[in-house]
């Protein structure tokens, strides 16, 4: 008996040791063939919906942004540049926008794009039944009309230059009028972008093929697949194994674990972390109490603890031509003496207590942010309780404003009106979670939106940043990096800071 087990044990051990090497050799053929035909991108998310007018998930935007075009788009410097509209002009006191369309553009179904398609697309986005989450971005538009086959005229109820930013989102994608009428958009994507929809396996993969009729020239990548890999560590492993050619990552620790021979790109994305405050009741309705929090906050320490310092401390406008500088008009860096002075002015010299909600489901760094802030605030006697909620519970409470303070990761935009009009503007959709309103903020937002001169807008938006931070409406914290790590053979890819179109340069990417 002993002899039999002994021999079998040796054989099993030998088999185990050799198996990885044997498998490894055999798998190389498979991965090479996969890499040769399909460019695979690993991501923890999955494409959920394929109707561009209703998507909200970042990866849905990324995928559909490769299939559809919009009238205008944001480039890597966050400037508005042409897409399907080659030029545009405001007139009638910024109440009319006329767009000239690109000619010779074809949809995937072979039909040629005309102004009728643009009118149908924007009308669909505005329709209540569509439930387009970006419909409010063109809420001021009262009339969408064609003026000849290649010209579209938008008429607004009031001067609104920010409408141009609204037209850059994938939620305003241009699709064939015939497909809208036929009701096939939700099942069969049909755009003018560099790639065509090929297949989708729910929660697993989304595949696109190069569009041979793309007006910008046929992409070099024949097939692109977005593969859902549930953990970032597994994405890194798949990249090293050569079974994917690119990984989209957000955790610096995982990025650092990948050998440097794999090119890495990191960009500050168009979002920001903030501690949102409900300023209408309780102790936080006292402006000096809020300013005490602002001055006691050590943003650099929070950045360090949350994302190992891989990011940037930012103010209300994190990126773009109107980025807040300084990041805060009051206490841009931690000032505990000033914090104590504000506490005295608030009538709370020994500090006060409040509760902040986090959701590590929604933002894995929010727990670390909260703990870092808790320890900094304690230095001046402010006690911050932390309540971590499941994602849906957090969303429900956030939407109803059922919190004193909330650690939030919010989407940003180069245009401050697009960012904050929905929180602090007249008739703001998110006024309840914003928790603060003032006539001065409303008028500053309106002034910036109506002003079409660069210098005028810069002054308006600087005043907005100052107003938001001098009243400690919220405490703006930092912006972190998004990463793309790729195989050394990938050429021509540039990760865009615009979260919703980070993969746009795939149209110009090749594999050597």
């Amino acid at each position: 008996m002993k002899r039999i087990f002994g021999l079998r044990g040796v054989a099993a051990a030998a088999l185990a040791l050799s198996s990885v090497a044997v498998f490894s050799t055999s798998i190389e053929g498979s991965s090479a063939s996969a890499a040769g035909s399909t460019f695979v991108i690993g991501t923890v998310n999955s494409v959920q919906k394929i109707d561009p007018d209703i998507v909200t998930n970042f990866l849905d935007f990324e995928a559909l942004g490769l299939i559809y075009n919009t009238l205008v788009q944001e480039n890597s410097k966050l400037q508005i540049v042409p897409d399907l509209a080659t030029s545009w002009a405001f007139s009638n006191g910024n109440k009319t926008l006329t767009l000239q369309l690109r000619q010779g553009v074809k949809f995937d179904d072979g039909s040629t794009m005309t102004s009728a398609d643009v009118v149908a697309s924007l009308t669909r986005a505005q329709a209540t039944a569509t439930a387009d989450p970006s419909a409010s971005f063109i809420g001021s538009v009262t009339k969408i009309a064609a003026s000849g086959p290649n010209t579209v005229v938008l008429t607004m109820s009031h001067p609104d230059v920010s409408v141009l930013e609204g037209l850059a989102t994938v939620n305003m994608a241009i699709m064939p009028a015939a497909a809208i009428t036929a009701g096939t958009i939700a099942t069969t994507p049909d755009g003018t972008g560099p790639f065509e929809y090929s297949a989708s396996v729910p929660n697993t993969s989304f595949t696109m093929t190069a569009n041979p009729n793309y007006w910008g020239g046929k992409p070099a990548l024949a097939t692109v697949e977005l593969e859902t890999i549930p953990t970032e560590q597994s994405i890194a492993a798949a990249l090293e194994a050569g079974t994917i050619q690119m990984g989209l990552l957000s955790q610096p620790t995982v990025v650092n674990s990948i050998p440097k021979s794999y090119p890495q790109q990191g960009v500050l994305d168009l979002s920001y972390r903030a501690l949102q405050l409900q300023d209408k009741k309780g102790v936080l309705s006292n402006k000096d109490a809020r300013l005490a929090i602002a001055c006691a906050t050590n943003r650099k320490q929070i950045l360090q603890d949350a994302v190992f310092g891989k990011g940037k401390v930012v103010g209300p406008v994190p990126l773009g031509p109107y980025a807040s500088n300084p990041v805060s008009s009051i206490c841009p860096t931690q000032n505990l003496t000033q914090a104590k002075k504000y506490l005295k002015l608030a009538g709370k010299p020994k500090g006060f207590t409040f509760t902040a909600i986090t959701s590590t489901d929604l933002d894995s760094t929010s727990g670390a942010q909260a703990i870092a802030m808790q320890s900094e605030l304690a230095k001046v006697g402010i006690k911050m309780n932390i309540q971590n909620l499941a994602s849906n519970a957090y969303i429900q409470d956030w939407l109803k404003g059922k919190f004193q303070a909330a650690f939030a990761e919010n989407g940003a935009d180069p245009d401050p009106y697009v960012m904050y009009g929905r929180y602090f503007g007249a008739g703001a959709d998110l006024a309840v979670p914003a928790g603060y309103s003032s006539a001065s903020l409303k008028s500053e937002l309106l002034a910036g939106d109506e002003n079409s001169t660069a210098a005028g807008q810069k002054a308006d938006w600087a005043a907005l940043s100052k107003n938001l931070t001098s009243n400690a409406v919220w405490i703006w914290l930092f912006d972190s990096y998004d990463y793309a790590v790729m195989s050394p053979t990938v050429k021509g890819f540039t990760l865009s800071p615009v979260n919703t179109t980070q993969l746009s340069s795939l149209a110009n990417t090749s594999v050597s």
Partner: protein
Amino acid sequence: MSVYLAVVRRILSMIVTLIGVSIIIFIVLRLLPGNAVQASLGVSEGLLTHAQIAALDKYYGVGQPAVQQYFSWLHATLTGNLGVSLVSRSAVSTLIGTALPVTLELAFFAMLIGVLIGVGFGMWSGLHPGRWQDDLGQGVSVVGLAIPTFILGTLLVVFMASKFHYFPSSLPFVGIATNPWLNFQQIIFPALVLSLGIGAAILRTTRAAVLEVENLNFARTALGKGVSRRAFIWRHLFLNSLTAVLTMSGIQFGYLLGGTVIIEQIFILPGMGRLLITSITNRDFPVVQSVTLIFAAGFVIVNMLVDLCYALIDPRTRKR
């Protein structure tokens, strides 16, 4: 005849159990905050008007009364139609039809390896109590029980990828009929990780059973009558220890289904566990209900089969 009656009784009790499970799942899911619309939109829901939200509620069917939702789901399930995913709009039966074979294959290999490890080492340990073979077996069982599968799985994935550039599960999953060799490579490593915990538990049970049976009168009598060592081990010890091993294997199958949820995430296998996690996150209730019901049915069926196997391996139980 008594065996047939027992089978019928078990099937009836299985149906009652599954109906109970379905009601519990249904209630628990409704107690979770949020619905498919909120899970889909996140905070962007705040950007929609009431009319837009009403349009989406209608689209997702979240406005129906809970009782109506339950009975329409139950009716659909009983007629073989598991409904439609709220998120992907795919038929739930299609989603499960793709995911179930992956999980079944994973579970099969994990159980097979676990039983081989557990029974092999358990017999070996039990036959050499207090000696180095026993220490080794006990050591294997402690390691198997102490290391969480998610840590072992992650370590294995990172090690294989960084040292051997090898991670076959990250290739698109292929069925056993399409490419048996690649399929084997994709399944074997997650199955190995899952099997360790199963094997450790079975090992301990087998060792204890062997030690117990070895000291029973009939065993000592058999040895006294001059039965060969090999015949004693396989005919007397092994067969008489099998009842305990079978019981433990049935219990381990329940844990195995839970383990696949984590292992499928780490090894990127598009199985039922991954489908369940994604569907819970998305509040995709029709999928969650059906997947959970299938997990529960699997557990109940395996335990019923274990009970039937008792009758096959132990004649005494047939008379009860």
